[in-house]
């Protein structure tokens, strides 16, 4: 520490992006709240799969590994966005953003690091869900070998991964937009569960609406990814346009807001 009036920055490199990701990943499980959220997600998926397995075994129903994956996806599509919301909003609700953004003033790098953490946690969850699906199928195989099938299409798994990641990103985008945990969760629930009903009602009641709604309904557009049957320019166009509306727009405004926001 020489008594010079300038800071010599030549020997200091920018914080590497991988390090930001590692720190953000650690922050997702180093508190009780974060740790138990992750445990609960796996717990809920495991519990529902176990109940489903028992029902199948007792009722002697035919079942495929793919069925378990679909069931798991149904739950993670709700739980992963909440995880993504928490990754963003806790910096504001706990005010830890003050330190986070003091240590990395280039805020967009932190936001992207958090997004990468969201993707990592999504993949971990999906792998865990898949392993649980395999275990449940194995149980059914033992109980009812004749009725149990191991068929699962690679495209199903790809569709599962992509739709779950998009669901997570949906929560993430709304979180950056609102920077508030309860508000982001409420808006996500509306988007996820209320909006499809409104679209359906609109399609049924308003003549011209079914022309417009495919361009607006991101979740319907994703249905084709899940089936991995996205074909034709029109379907891709629906996906891109509705995706820009529900992911791109909130994320863009949210990022703009985070970059300008005063951290209190």
């Amino acid at each position, binding site marked *: 520490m020489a008594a010079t*009036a300038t800071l010599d920055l030549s020997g200091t490199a920018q914080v590497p992006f991988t390090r930001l990701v590692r720190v953000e990943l650690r922050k997702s499980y180093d508190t009780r709240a974060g740790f138990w959220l992750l445990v609960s997600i796996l717990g809920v998926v495991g519990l529902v799969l176990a109940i489903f397995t028992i029902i199948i075994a007792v009722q002697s129903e035919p079942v495929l590994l793919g069925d378990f994956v679909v069931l798991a996806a149904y739950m993670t599509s709700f739980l992963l966005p909440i995880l993504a919301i928490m990754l963003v909003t806790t910096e504001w609700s706990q005010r830890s953003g003050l330190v986070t953004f003091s240590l990395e003033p280039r805020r967009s790098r932190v936001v992207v690091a958090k997004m990468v953490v969201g993707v990592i946690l999504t993949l971990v969850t999906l792998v865990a869900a898949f392993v649980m699906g395999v275990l449940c199928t194995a149980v059914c195989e033992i109980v009812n070998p004749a009725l149990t099938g191991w068929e699962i299409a690679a495209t199903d798994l790809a569709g599962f991964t992509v739709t779950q990641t998009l669901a997570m990103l949906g929560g993430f985008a709304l979180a950056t937009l609102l920077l508030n945990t309860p508000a982001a969760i409420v808006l996500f629930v509306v988007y996820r569960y209320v909006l499809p009903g409104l679209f359906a009602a609109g399609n049924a009641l308003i003549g011209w609406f079914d022309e417009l709604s495919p361009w607006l309904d991101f979740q319907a557009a994703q249905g084709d990814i899940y089936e991995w049957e996205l074909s034709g320019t029109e379907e891709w166009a629906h996906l891109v346009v509705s995706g820009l509306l529900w992911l791109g727009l909130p994320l863009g405004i949210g990022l703009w807001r985070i970059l300008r926001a005063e951290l209190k």
Partner: protein
Amino acid sequence: MPAGSPCGRVDAMITVERLTRKYGAFTAVDDVSFVAQPGRVTGFLGPNGAGKTTTMRVMVGLTPATSGRATIGGHLYRDIPNPGRHVGVLLDASAQHAGRTGREILTLGAQTMGLPASRVDEMLDLVSLSPTEAKRRLRNYSLGMKQRLGIAHALLGDPSVLILDEPANGLDPAGIRWMRGLLKGYADRGGTVLLSSHLLNEVELIADEMILIGHGRIVAQGNKEQLLADVDHKVTNVTALDNAALAQALQAKGLAVTQAGTGLRVEAAPVDVGRTAAENAIVLTDLRSADGGLEDLFLELTSDTQRDDVPQGAPA
């Protein structure tokens, strides 16, 4: 370090230039300029809501400036790579996830800055947080413990500049003395320290240089001697058996006299007032300097920004 004007030196580490921050019609920081030099502790002093915190937040890029700028070592904070290695910041010791342990908070900082885990233990040791305390979660910390942890966090990256907002808040007297020693030693080794406080005594004891802010404006700056020399009106409170006669005698000498409580307030040194009384054979029952040093200066300079009126005739 030569004494003299605090402005315009070439060796300023922190330079704040004409900084203004407005919130709608409210101006939190109004055209503030000052410097903090290496090897010195600069105290940033002002009543609650004077704009100290806002100024410091602008320095580290958490609040955008409306106009003007603040540089550290010639750089804007946001242009400093891995800033924790150069500038230690403590703005609010409570602004951490309440569910994290003290050790975990320091570990996250150390990892971000790319420091070995051993640095966390060194810092815990430095601020006297025991291993058991370090394992507790922040929500169970007292304010004093949070401050110690915050100071440890600011020092993690072995920075050459420290920016601390109210670091002594919540520390017990022993803790304040400890912090004083720590920061003095840090400045003696060439570090630059800028710390804010609303408590004059605290800053008076630790700071080499003081910047007084009130209502978002700098009202005075310099070391203690300069501050007192600048505004050294000799004022005396005096009470005599015959106040009227004394007032007449003082006014005859051309001194300004005003009624103050049961006595008089004279703009002259006590010795001159006493001499006048002796010459006129007036019996004095009370004679003392109304010049209360820095505290009076502080209150006077920031008077229009104080929330509470200073009681009239308060002991000097």
